[in-house]
């Protein structure tokens, strides 16, 4: 892999993590003394993707803004890797009138026409709309593809099955991605999924499937490259499952008492790990690490400043936007 790509993958992951660390901070900052999920600058459920950046960076490196992504309740890494405007994203998370959805959506409901990005809080139900985006791309023969993402827990929902079958049958330009972070809230993979790899299931739809066992951005990049290429050139859908890592809780506030895989979790963080790899390969230096971090911080700071200084929606507009 060329160094430019490596650096770019690293930068993408850092940007996503930097953004989420800022959100993490502000989310918890003003929920004290009695922690209240509905209070503060950022209220509501907050599902952060830290640890899963390799999936987003590795897949989205092959995409451009005319390709669609449908993501999950845990969408930030994908939104950022796909190039969503951080200001619009942040403003939506802070519930502001300047946000992507003018504050109506929130962090599970990001809709960005500029990057054909959307997500949903209902697990696996982002798969079907991706088929439709792919269908329209195919009908217009514009070379774009759709990427549909879901978790390993969600892969046991009916929508997963129906979508894979229909996409295969109609030879739609879709890449299905399963983020296997071992957990669906508190339920471990072995208690949710009767098979070791969802790539195995792809065979049941006559579709290529690949499981990436290592949470490495380069491994994801390789697998996604083939799948995206296939979709873009009429080869139809494929599935990629990545064994990734949920570094933090299911949502913020999750005490994770049920979790038995926390030992040494910091060492499994894919970002420092990749930094180390790139440093020893001579691609990255300590100075570059610092400057990438600084760039990320300044973008994120600007986005969050924009969000915080934006107006709060007026309650009297509550019925605006129900119908077009």
């Amino acid at each position, binding site marked *: 892999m060329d160094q430019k790509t490596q650096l770019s993958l690293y930068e993408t992951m850092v940007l996503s993590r930097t953004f989420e660390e800022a959100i993490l901070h502000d989310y918890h900052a003003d929920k004290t003394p009695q922690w209240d999920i509905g209070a503060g600058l950022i209220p509501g459920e907050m599902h952060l993707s830290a640890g899963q950046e390799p999936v987003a960076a590795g897949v989205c490196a092959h995409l451009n803004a005319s390709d669609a992504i449908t993501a999950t309740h845990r969408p930030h890494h994908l939104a950022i890797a796909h190039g969503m405007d951080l200001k619009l994203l942040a403003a939506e998370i802070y519930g502001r009138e300047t946000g992507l959805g003018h504050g109506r959506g929130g962090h599970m409901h990001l809709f960005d026409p500029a990057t054909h990005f959307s997500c949903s809080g209902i697990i696996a139900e982002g798969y079907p709309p991706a088929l439709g985006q792919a269908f329209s791309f195919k009908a217009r023969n514009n070379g774009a593809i759709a990427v549909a993402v879901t978790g390993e827990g969600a892969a046991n929902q009916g929508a997963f099955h129906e*979508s894979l079958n229909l996409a295969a049958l109609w030879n739609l330009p879709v890449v299905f991605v399963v983020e296997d972070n071992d957990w669906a809230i508190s339920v471990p993979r072995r208690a949710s999924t009767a098979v070791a790899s969802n790539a195995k299931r792809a065979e049941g739809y006559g579709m290529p499937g690949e499981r990436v066992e290592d949470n490495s951005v380069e491994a994801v990049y390789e697998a996604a490259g083939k799948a995206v290429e296939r979709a873009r050139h009429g080869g139809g859908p494929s599935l990629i499952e990545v064994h990734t890592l949920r570094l933090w809780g299911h949502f913020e506030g999750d005490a994770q008492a049920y979790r038995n895989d926390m030992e040494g979790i910091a060492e499994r963080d894919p970002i420092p790990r990749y930094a180390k790899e790139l440093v020893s390969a001579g691609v990255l230096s300590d100075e570059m690490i610092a400057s990438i971090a600084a760039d990320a911080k300044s973008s994120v700071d600007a986005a969050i400043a924009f969000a915080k200084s934006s107006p709060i929606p007026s309650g009297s507009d509550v019925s605006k936007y129900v119908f077009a």
Partner: protein
Amino acid sequence: MALTQTPNPSMTTSRKLTTAKAMVEGISQEMERDDSVFVLGEDVGAYGGIFSSTTGLLEQFGPGRVMDTPISETAFIGLATGAAVEGMRPIVELMFVDFFGVCMDQIYNHMAKIHYESGGNVKVPLVLMTAVGGGYSDGAQHSQCLWGTFAHLPGLKVVVPSNPADAKGLMIAAIRDDNPVVYMFHKGIMGLPWMAKNPRSLGPVPEEAYEVPIGKAAVARSGSDVTIVTLSLSVHHALDAADEMAKAGVDCEVIDLRSLVPLDRSAVLESVTKTGRLLIVDEDYQSFGLSGEITAIIAESDPRLLRAPMIRVAVPDVPIPYARSLEYAALPTTERITAAIKRIMA
């Protein structure tokens, strides 16, 4: 006539079509006009739609625009939503409304909410058409109307034609609308050769494309003594009952709602202001649905408009039974309506 009635396009033509053919004609004209319109669903291709809602479209437009799907309602209705998000205008058929339970998440959590959640930045222009209604012993899972369920959840327009001319005009309006529109057609008004049909399922339909505006009720019959608010097949039972009662000197006004979302509240209010009596005829389940909402229109405005208690002729809160004797005890028949008019006038 006190109410503004939509100019009825059927006045200007003598050509008669069944409701099914009128619907298909509307779809076909729009598909010719706009190549972003396409049709998908189970058996909509070679079969032409189980209730003839798509007959001939495959032959006319080919398999690239008229597509049979697997029995995967979540996937293909979601596909329609995704295509609409990208600017296409899908018409997707849910074969029976009774099957909504396998795909409702796509409908009400996605199709219906995307526009709002996106703050108006993403439109979802599609038509979800679906067959409703009983009367031919198809049992508890194939005979429901369920429009109350769809109308309760925000973000979907809901239209329910009762005759061929409206069926065509509402279909065209639905296709052109930038919102998701649920289009519910009653099997008993389609004019199918294999099912008992209401005589009015064949009626005059103009040849050109036209819209019937979504959200305007029609006065199917003007009268001064009792307001009968209804829709779909029941409009015809209400008209039959009204004719019968006219002989007894009772003058019924029949309001055909045509659209539940938006609901033409002022049409109901104006009529009840005139008559002082409200009878609601609804083939959906009685409680927590349409009939309560119609009542609320009056109660929120002026409950004392009602000179007599409101009466509902609806499906009592029972699953639709199979045996004909039981099913017709549950359905809003002309007999039940006539009896109710007598009671309300007593």
